[in-house]
């Protein structure tokens, strides 16, 4: 099962390496990883996706808590969090196919980031499954290059029946 972890990390040299090294050394596979600044300049937030059993997840979280630079680890359940991803997709678009592609993009709220003679770069931000669908639909047109940021996530502040699961928080 794939789990999403949100990790608050001290913004210090080598801090990210310590987290990724831990995953590598204990044999856990990272599906995606996004890292960037937060509302506090001294803290970065990592959103990690990892495919593992519940028991392994517990181990990962406990091991991460032992890292001196790790401030907080939260598991975010999909129904309790807002998840977004950004993708840039360069699609082959000869003049006779442009209209079709632009119509498709319109449905998905994808923007045109660049338009060339025979290709378009789309920019799409949204739920990862929506990006999957868009990717699927433009693929027959010929995807030249594609990059996805990996998902970022935050806990929903809106009231929910259950609280997010928090692993042994400090």
């Amino acid at each position, binding site marked *: 099962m794939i789990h999403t972890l949100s990790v608050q990390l001290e913004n210090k*040299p*080598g801090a990210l390496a*310590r987290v990724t090294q831990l995953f590598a050394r204990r044999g856990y596979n990272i599906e995606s990883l996004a890292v960037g600044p937060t509302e506090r300049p001294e803290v970065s937030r990592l959103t990690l996706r990892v495919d593992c059993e519940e028991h392994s997840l517990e*181990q990962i979280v*406990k091991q991460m808590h032992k*890292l*001196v630079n790790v401030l907080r680890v939260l598991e975010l359940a999909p129904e309790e969090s807002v998840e977004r991803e950004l993708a840039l997709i360069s699609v082959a678009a000869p003049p006779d196919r442009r209209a079709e592609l632009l119509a498709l993009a319109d449905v998905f709220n994808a923007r045109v980031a660049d338009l060339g003679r025979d290709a378009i770069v789309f920019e799409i931000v949204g739920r990862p499954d929506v990006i999957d669908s868009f990717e699927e639909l433009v693929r027959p047109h010929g995807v030249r290059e594609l990059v996805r940021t990996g998902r970022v996530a935050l806990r929903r502040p809106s009231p929910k029946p259950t609280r997010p699961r928090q692993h*042994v928080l400090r």
Partner: protein
Amino acid sequence: MTRMLGSDAILRSLEAEGVEIAFGIPGGAILPTYDAWARGSGVRHVLARHEQGAGHMAEGYARASGRVGVAIATSGPGATNLVTPIADAWMDSTPLVCITGQVRSNLIGTDAFQETDATGITLPIVKHSWLVQDVEELPGVMKAAFHIAQTGRSGPVLVDIAKDVQEAEFDFRYPDEVDLPGWKPPTKVHVRQLREAAAALLEAKRPIVYVGGGVLNGDACDELRRLVELAGVPVVTTLMGKGSFPDSHPLNFGHPGMHGSKYGNWALNKADLIVAVGARFDDRVTGKVSAFAPGARVVHFDVDAAEVGKIRHAEIPVVGPLKLALAKLSDEVRALSPDGVRPPAEWLRQLEEWRELYPYKYRRADGVLKPQTVLETLQELTAGRDDTIFTTGVGQHQMWAMQYLQCDRPRTFITSGGLGTMGYGIPAAVGAKAARPDATVVCVDGDGCFQMTAQELATAALERLPIVVVLINNGWLGMVRQWQELFYDERFSNTHLTHQVPDYAKLAEAYGCAGFTVDAEDELESALSAALECGRTAVVDARCDPEEKCYPMVPAGAAAVDVLEMPDEEVATR
């Protein structure tokens, strides 16, 4: 606030931490700090002959004293030579602060002479590490290094300091507090879990307390003993836990594990409740995990939450400092049984019967010295002494030392458990002697191990840190040979070292130590006595039977309950 150089600030920081001794070797990138030593310091420096030796000395010091060990080395090869002791300290949770010099800040990343990414290389085997490139950060880093090394589950940290930082002048003030928002090891224990643990302990028909090195690291030996005597429950101690509970105590049922006793393994594997205390269900203890103690519920006490449930599910997890947890567990046990605790009498009778039936055994033979005889004699000769500390290398001799030496006090059996570092024994003994100058420090070593760190005999001799090395010389990499004999159809590939090369007694003399050679049983006692009495560093080369195998043995991958004893025909015929 005092104006000084970074190099002086390193030594003032060590002094502020109460460090009395550091083990190391100078070199280019750490020269300014050694120059600070020339200007004077309250910290004694012991000059090792190899950085690995310095690291193991710091470990031996830490294990014997309960304080943080300090090792210091230069950049590049100095730092890489420290990697083995750092890994060793990581596996055995030994508190260690390693200080390495680094090339100048402006050269970092250029593949400069003797540059290596010390923090990168050691990333998986330290609790934390720092590369200091700004002298203003130095005092805070030193404070944090000592704090992290010894709080929570203890272990190694690395402080890598650029040469220009050591040379920079600044206003030094040692901080009173650390600023580590991400480092909060547990300081309390949940009462509800303690209550459940106490109830489980009292309800169990066949309880066993399974004690690991965490009890020593957590300074919880007195609390453990009080609990055990209060509840009248039996104990087994792991290799790392040896000495945390007296070996001679009637409730001590020895050591479980690959070369533990049959009764020790049975006590653990046939229990209905395992109370694990500062132990981590290592594969050398459990054997095949799926077959390990199938009928037992588990209460797991550990200061490191990540150990609880890692290998074996714990029905009752108790995370917190062991000293506090065990004291409170005793309180809960007392509260639950106001009329006194009834010990598990039937189970204890059973365990005593097994202990009678399955002692460690071997057979003496004419004309050949048995390693077990050497250890039995060593045990007899040191039993009367007030204070003896044993260290070991890794291999057969280590397992025989565990079996035949009796340790009744904490911090008297110092060995490399998790990493299994051959060559640990001699430098660890030198470090232990530095920690406890009044103790008799004996390194039980193997001939393979001896040759990995023998150069530290020079350190022992010249630094006046006399140790006694009892060399179980069987002429082979004995444990490997044993596996080749039992599991590789006696194909003895590259394990023969010979008894004679080097001549260990002569080598000892070359290093300024006393050397003794023992070929036969009747020379043994006098040589060992002489070595123990001579007041100098001494090596007793006991040339032993190369074919003697270490039993009992749980073959790798087998269930621990199926422990093999020495075959009867060997006991009978040899």
